[in-house]
């Protein structure tokens, strides 16, 4: 395989339409006679619905319909779990509209459909709902008491519970010279893609076919769900993925609206568009993180880690969403991180409260567990008087120990195995880049009104979640090669990276390739884009499909030329004799196309120059890295300024360094914002207080420091032909840990102990104040 494209920093081919305002996001798609929907959402965290009166709303000119549970009852069923279905969670699922009771602020109660969104919102104002307000439970601690039950019929708010047990934890703690126990809290926050969710559904009643623009992330899975809800065969449902304004794990799951909007289109016989507004997004799209953990670590005096045990609680909100218990389960699953910790025990709990449901956000559970573990390590280092980098180097899993079997971290799953990696090297590179040798002298130093601190965070992250991905490569005349992928695109640049892989594998110029993605009509099966699986699963599927097509090309060309296919090669879109570097090509790919036609007499194979391939994998391949940050903290105002941030990431093999670099910078910036600024805050009675960007603060250009990204390719994956690992999520996951460690080090002289996030001005100042009051 020639490697002109893989590994090259190719500019993105899809950019022009975005730059010129010609991209088509779902709200840019317009169809004739389109109506607009608005969702009436609960203004109470916990209440019984006594009545819903829609007459006034229906009387408003331009209002076409108001849909309530009664209208959907014959089709309504709970939205199922598609992953991490921990036993017990299935009792807490959400119907697309509230039935008799609402369990979080923002829960959909009714859908108003009108000629414009303006009028639809007027209709919402005129719908009269009578609530019987119930007490709300808004903290895990409160919920555990089971006094206020979110789902009374289940008798408890503890929706699921299980334990991880690896090695002999009792022995570890008995043998330990040193132990440390702490409680950690990771705050609730979410991804806030700049484009909110949206759907446009259009039903052809003549043919009984439904078309929906807007689905993304896991379109095939969601189509299957919708098919089941509507009792409409999948082949009659067409999901079209438009351009998508980011996802970060939040957009693209099956939400109530994914049923409601198609339902409305079918009921009304007219296309219905719904575009979520920002206020809705903040209260209705999945929240994430929100983990509370009691953790205890055991070590020898020399810093050798012996054991880690924890009790971890995920605040799941009012209903379990499509990813089940992913947040607390993923937090627990990689809590030990890239370290050799022989004994590990963790009890995982999913707790229901009256808040928005919890779902995935970039590296779900991993940001949380990285924070917990890396903070503990720094505490160990401080207590045992060992440099935090030294402590890590001592305990990081060595390349000679690969593959490293961590163990079973979820019942019924195969053991977690780190396939390959040089973890110490990533740490060393990061330390070298930031100049740790010199810089560590400034730890905790007060310079010009600020305290300086350096923090380290090491991580490992599963990528390439299987079990399969599908791709199809098709060559047609006009030098036109199509690559169809089962992946979705939320901004990652698949139109470029997948073209790179196809171009190199097939042996054609990249300009001839167009990548199609997301639509359920392209391929029969697709796994979607999530869990950093795109490059691994999609990329390898493209590789396999392109290989097959190349093989076909050479076989048919060989048949035509009277040569063995093994004596031919395809290079730059031309068929050459193998080894005949300087001679003219024998055929062009364009020439081979008619030779593959159904009418051709020289084709020994099936007609067509195309192949559909599946890359199957039951293994996860692990990307890893290290972040190091230098911060300056103003002790009087609590302001944390990030002076420098170094992020080292090893993806095994990098398809496009320009794009991966972009992911790293973007992911780190997102993580810095989440760690310093973002917070979804609820009042005592379950009101979400952060419902606009005035209160939910996203990082802007003045918050983001210089970020130095280093991409390593030290440990290619041994688990797939391309040797790649994923690289989308891990870029933000160590930011909480790294910044928290930096702040803790900066404020060490105060004795401040950082066990909570975010690192807001107010919280940092409060920590200092509490310590000063003690003195």
């Amino acid at each position, binding site marked *: 395989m020639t490697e002109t494209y893989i590994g090259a920093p190719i500019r993105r081919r899809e950019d022009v339409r975005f730059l010129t305002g010609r991209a088509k996001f779902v709200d840019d798609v317009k169809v004739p006679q389109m109506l607009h929907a608005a969702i009436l959402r609960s203004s109470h965290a916990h209440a019984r619905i006594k009545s819903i009166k829609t007459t006034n709303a229906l009387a408003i000119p331009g209002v076409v319909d108001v849909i309530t549970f009664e209208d959907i009852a014959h089709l309504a069923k709970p939205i199922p779990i598609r992953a991490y279905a921990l036993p017990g969670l299935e009792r807490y699922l959400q119907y697309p509209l509230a039935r008799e009771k609402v369990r979080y602020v923002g829960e959909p109660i009714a859908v108003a459909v009108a000629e414009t*969104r*303006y009028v639809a*919102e*007027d209709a919402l*104002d005129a719908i009269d709902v009578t609530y019987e307000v119930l007490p709300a439970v808004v903290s895990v601690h409160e919920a555990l008491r089971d006094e206020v039950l979110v789902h009374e019929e289940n008798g408890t708010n503890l929706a699921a519970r299980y334990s991880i047990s690896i090695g002999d934890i009792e022995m570890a703690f008995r043998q330990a010279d040193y132990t440390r126990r702490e409680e950690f809290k990771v705050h609730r926050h979410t991804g806030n893609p700049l484009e909110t969710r949206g759907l446009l559904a259009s039903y052809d009643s003549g043919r009984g076919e439904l078309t929906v623009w807007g689905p993304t992330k896991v379109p095939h899975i969601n189509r299957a769900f919708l098919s089941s809800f509507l009792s409409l065969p999948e082949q009659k449902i067409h999901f079209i993925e438009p351009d998508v304004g980011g996802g970060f794990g939040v957009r693209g799951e099956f939400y109530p609206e994914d049923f409601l909007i198609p339902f409305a289109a079918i009921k009304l016989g007219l296309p219905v568009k719904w575009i979520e*507004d*920002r*206020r809705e997004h903040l209260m209705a799209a999945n929240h994430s993180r929100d983990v509370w953990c009691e953790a205890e670590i055991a070590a020898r005096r020399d810093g050798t880690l012996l054991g880690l045990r924890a009790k971890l609680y995920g605040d799941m909100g009012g209903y379990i969403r499509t990813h089940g218990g992913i947040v607390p389960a993923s937090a627990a699953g990689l809590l030990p991180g890239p370290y050799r910790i022989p004994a590990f025990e963790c009890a995982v709990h999913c707790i229901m409260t009256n808040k928005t449901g919890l779902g995935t956000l970039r590296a779900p559970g991993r940001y949380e567990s990285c924070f917990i573990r890396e903070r503990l390590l720094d505490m160990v280092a401080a207590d045992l008087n060992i440099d935090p980098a030294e402590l890590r180097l001592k305990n990081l899993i060595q390349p000679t120990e690969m593959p490293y079997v961590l163990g079973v971290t979820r019942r019924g799953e195969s053991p977690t195995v780190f396939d390959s990696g040089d973890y110490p090297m990533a740490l060393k590179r990061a330390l070298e880049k930031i100049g740790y040798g010199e810089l560590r002298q400034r730890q905790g130093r007060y310079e010009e009104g600020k305290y300086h601190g350096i923090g380290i965070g090491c991580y490992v992250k599963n990528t390439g979640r299987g079990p399969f991905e599908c791709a199809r490569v098709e060559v047609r005349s006009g030098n036109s090669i199509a690559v169809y992928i089962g992946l979705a695109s939320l901004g990652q640049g698949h139109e470029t990276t997948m073209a790179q892989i196809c171009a190199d594998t097939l042996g054609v110029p990249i300009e001839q390739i167009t990548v199609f993605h997301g639509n359920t009509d392209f391929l029969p099966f697709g796994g979607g884009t999530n869990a950093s699986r795109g490059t691994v699963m999609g990329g390898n599927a493209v590789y396999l499909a392109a290989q097959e097509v190349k093989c076909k090309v050479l076989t048919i060309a060989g048949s035509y030329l009277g040569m063995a296919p093994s004596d031919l090669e395809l290079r730059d879109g031309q068929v050459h004799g193998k080894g005949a570097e300087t001679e003219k090509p024998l055929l062009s790919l364009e020439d081979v196309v008619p030779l593959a036609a159904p009418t051709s007499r020289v084709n020994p194979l099936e007609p067509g120059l195309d192949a559909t391939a599946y890359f199957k994998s039951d293994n996860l391949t692990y990307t890893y890295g290290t972040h190091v940050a230098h911060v300056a903290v103003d002790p*009087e*105002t*609590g*302001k944390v300024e990030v002076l420098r941030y170094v992020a080292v990431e090893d993806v095994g093999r990098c398809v496009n360094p320009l794009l991966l670099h972009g992911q790293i910078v973007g992911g780190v910036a997102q993580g810095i914002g989440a760690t310093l*600024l973002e917070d979804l*805050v609820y009042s005592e009675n379950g009101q979400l*207080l*952060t419902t*606009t960007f*005035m*209160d939910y*603060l996203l*990082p*802007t250009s*003045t*918050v983001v420091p210089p970020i130095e990204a280093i991409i390593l390719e030290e440990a290619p994956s041994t688990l797939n032909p391309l040797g790649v690992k994923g690289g989308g999520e891990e870029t933000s996951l160590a930011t909480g840990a790294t910044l928290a460690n930096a702040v803790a080090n900066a404020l060490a002289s105060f004795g401040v102990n950082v066990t909570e996030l975010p690192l*807001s*001005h*107010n919280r940092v*100042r*409060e920590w200092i*104040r509490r310590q000063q009051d003690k003195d």
Partner: protein
Amino acid sequence: MKPAPFEYFAPQNLPEALELLAQYGEEAKVLAGGQSLMPLMNLRLARPKVVIDIGRLSELQYIAPLSNGDLAVGAFTRQRTVERSDMVQREHPLLAATIPLISHAQIRNRGTIGGSIAHADPAAELPALSVAFEAEFTVRSSRNQRVIRSQDFFLGYMTTALQPSELLTEIRIPAWDPRWGWAVDEVSRREGDFALVGVIVLLRLDNDVCEKARIVLFGVGAAPVRMRKAEEMLSGGRADGKAIAEAARIVSEDLEPDSDLHASAEYRKEVAGTLARRSLVEAISRAREATKR
């Protein structure tokens, strides 16, 4: 998030605007730059039945130095116009330094001086600045005209002394004394955000004795707060470290700020003291420079 329906008028001149206000009063909201009002309307937190757009009142757009040295600013003057005014840069350094702190350029391109003052967000810079200047506001209705002192204007959280039928037409900033030392500082979570705590200090020295001081805090309560006790303590005494520390302590102690999502009352009290201290140092330094000249 679309606004609720409303009746819209775009009067061509001031008398027309005042007539409309007289007619609709309580039911109407004045639309100036829209940077404060439109978010509220989009969120349906404000649902005026009538919107009176004063965008065509060019007679309210001016920055006019008066013969007595006062600066008269028309209420509909865009914040960006003040920001870009060479004359303001030269003659009114505190005003010049404060405007860029307001949000972001795109907001200042549309937002007006009068709009921000009439909106009276306690965390905004302009209301506090007007209190520090001891500015006066000309307010007109179809029936009369009056002048309200800034100290009497801000009554509470987003509440001013404006009657429903009245329009703020002019802000008069007293002549800038070149001997003033000054400072403006704020702590916000990100640059351009509303202040968690903000302070404006004006201070005049006579042979290193503090002749006059004004300390105004914003973001700490329902309206800008003038710290008179601290001001009095400073007046007549030496402008030294001890006095600064004491003034800052009084500011912190005297203040009874609110707690909210972003900062506790305790935080605001402490940081108010910190910012007061830092600003006094800066203002005194400038005052010393000014007396040398």
